[in-house]
């Protein structure tokens, strides 16, 4: 769950397409660390292109500082594309699994509350309920607030993955070229 400090921070959401080589994740995280950017969330997986991994990185900060962050990431040889999607209409999804205390006969109450959040009960014990929720980070925060009233025994989150909505701003194989052009024309630096 987010601390007071974290709630007041502005974040930027970036998507990186990178070579699927050993050490690339280390290089990306080291660039962010040594240039002084705090990572709020980072997730990696395959993309639609063989040999290309896709990262979604949420970092603290906005504006020119993030522009500098983007340029520094571009300098890594294995980084193929960097997209700052902060200002784009996009789908942000994250998965969380939460074991919630059901002591005091609260299991039924938890289960019905979970339904309201479209969370799924994936495990049930004598004194706990384990829920899985796939939602926006915002909805997950709200779900966790609710869960914390009962007591959160264990929590794991995947970190957010994102995709822009619509083909124009999207990053699917068909629209990569178009997006590249946009990025180029914005700052002439691609």
């Amino acid at each position, binding site marked *: 769950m987010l601390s007071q400090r974290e709630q007041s921070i502005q974040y930027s959401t970036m998507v990186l397409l990178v*070579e699927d080589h050993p050490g690339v994740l280390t290089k990306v995280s080291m660039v962010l660390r040594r240039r002084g950017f705090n990572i709020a969330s980072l997730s990696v997986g395959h993309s639609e292109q063989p040999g290309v991994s896709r990262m979604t990185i949420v970092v603290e900060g906005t504006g020119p500082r993030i*522009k*500098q962050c983007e340029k*520094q990431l*571009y300098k890594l*040889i294995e980084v193929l594309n960097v997209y700052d999607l902060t200002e784009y209409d996009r789908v942000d999804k994250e998965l969380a699994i939460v074991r919630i205390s059901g002591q005091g006969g609260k299991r039924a109450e938890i289960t019905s509350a979970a339904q309201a959040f479209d969370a799924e009960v994936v495990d049930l014990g004598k004194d706990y309920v384990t829920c899985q929720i796939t939602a926006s980070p915002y909805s997950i925060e709200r779900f966790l607030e609710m869960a914390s009233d009962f007591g959160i025994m264990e929590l794991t989150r995947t970190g957010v993955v994102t995709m822009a909505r619509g083909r124009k701003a999207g990053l699917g194989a068909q629209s990569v070229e178009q997006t590249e052009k946009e990025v180029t024309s914005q700052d*002439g630096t691609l």
Partner: protein
Amino acid sequence: MSNDSKSGRRSGGQIICDVLLQEGVNAIFGMPGGASLPFYDALYHYPQIRHYLARHEQGAGFMADGYARAKNQVGVCTSTSGPGATNFVTSMASAQMDSVPVVYITGQVAREFIGTDAFQETDATGVSIPVTKQNYLVKDIDELPRTVKEAFYLAKSGRPGPVHLDIPKDIFLAETDAPIPDEIEVRGYQPASAGDSGMIRRAADLINEAKKPVIIAGHGVAISEAWDELRVLAEKVNIPVITTLHGVGCFPETHPLSMGMLGMHGMYYANIAVDQCDLLIGIGFRFDDRVTGRVSGFAPNAKIIHIDLDPAEIEKVVQTDVPIVGDAKATLAQLNPIVGRAETDTWLDYLSKLRSEHPSETPPDTDQFLPQHMIRQIYKHSDGKAKVIADVGQNQMWASQNFFYDHPLSFFSAGGTGPMGYALPAAMGVQVACPDDEVWCVTGDGGFQINIQELAAVAEYKIPIKIGVMNNGHLGMIRQWQNRFYDGRLMGAELANPPFDKVAEAYGIPGLVARTKDEADEAIAKARSIDGPVLIDFMVAENEDCMPMVFPGASLAETVEA
């Protein structure tokens, strides 16, 4: 034994040597060790590549750095795993900050031992990530030919930098038929060529209208060999040219339009010109803090054109009016035809008057033997034709201030990282690259002792550098700062030195001492007459401060002259 063939079954060691030959590398600097023995065994069969045994891997790294800078080509150095690789780190950091193309080849423990804390195992590529442009741990012999070729390509192209190849011992020995590719393409890596033509047009419009323009030329001009284009631009438009430390020599310093170097220890008139200019044309420099002084007070009235190959340098420090991502040479070649003579006569007259009233480059007139005199005397004796490699600190600033560099690639210094101990090994590399040139290593008495062990290699290979130790018995810049900013509380600033002439003699290198200006004249003349390395211990005045100076936190307008 295969030598320059591109195919056939070869060992990893042979493949590396073959690529070195293809890339025109005729020297390699290094120190062998267990994990790199098979590579040395391959080198044994390649007499075309001369190996120079350094006495510390850091020395080997700086030798390759000097070689690379002087030739504007890739320099190569090698070490073993573990401590050999970690000893490279300082030189890697310097090459990275100063954009120098160096390929580092380190041995690694054999593949089966990686990750077992084997003897002399260090995660060398883990260590080198933040201090290299790219690095590789090669675990598949079939990938080696392409990877080695790619290392050279990445080191030299775009914004140059160090590339590290970490090669397990058994990979040097493994064999493959995989050919060495002729061309390398790396997706995700497309260095810019000429800048955007629309931006260049905008730049030309600003230049043509400027009344008080200045050019600041940096390392990028040297790297892209754009000195002719720079001169055309300056002369055609009539713009004064100021250089950064790494730009020194890119524009003839005796040229009427030359305004010397700017920055923390730049020429007074250069700093004031930047402060008062209405148009700043920055070419291949990165607005380093030692150049700008307080950024909020930097060139407050100027529109800024910034030409740089690296997009990340654009607007990293200052906002620019016309950003141009491009190679300096290609960009200037497009810019020059569309600019014309600007009305800068009044501005140039003003600067000329300023300069005559504030002659920063003239050493004080005194009988005392000042450090500045030493540099000026080397300048006179060599007729301004020497290549000078400076260390770090006061000596570095005086070496840049008191010598008029009229030729590109004639002054070298590790400006970004500021690693003391650079000058001696780097001068060796410069001399190896340019055997017919007069090469002077200018070093303080402090920095000299950081890589003094390389005197053994100077003597062994009879590398005919002239070593000028600017000996003031102190870490001079430390003393200067402690005197000025810490109320004179000297702490760790004084040096108890050995007699350096005797040290040199012990290594088999002629050693001379100069205590006065006259003795210095004599010693320099004698050193130049000796066909081989010579060391001169210049015992200069102890308490001279390096001026002008922009104090920390001050702007260029506040440059202090004395």
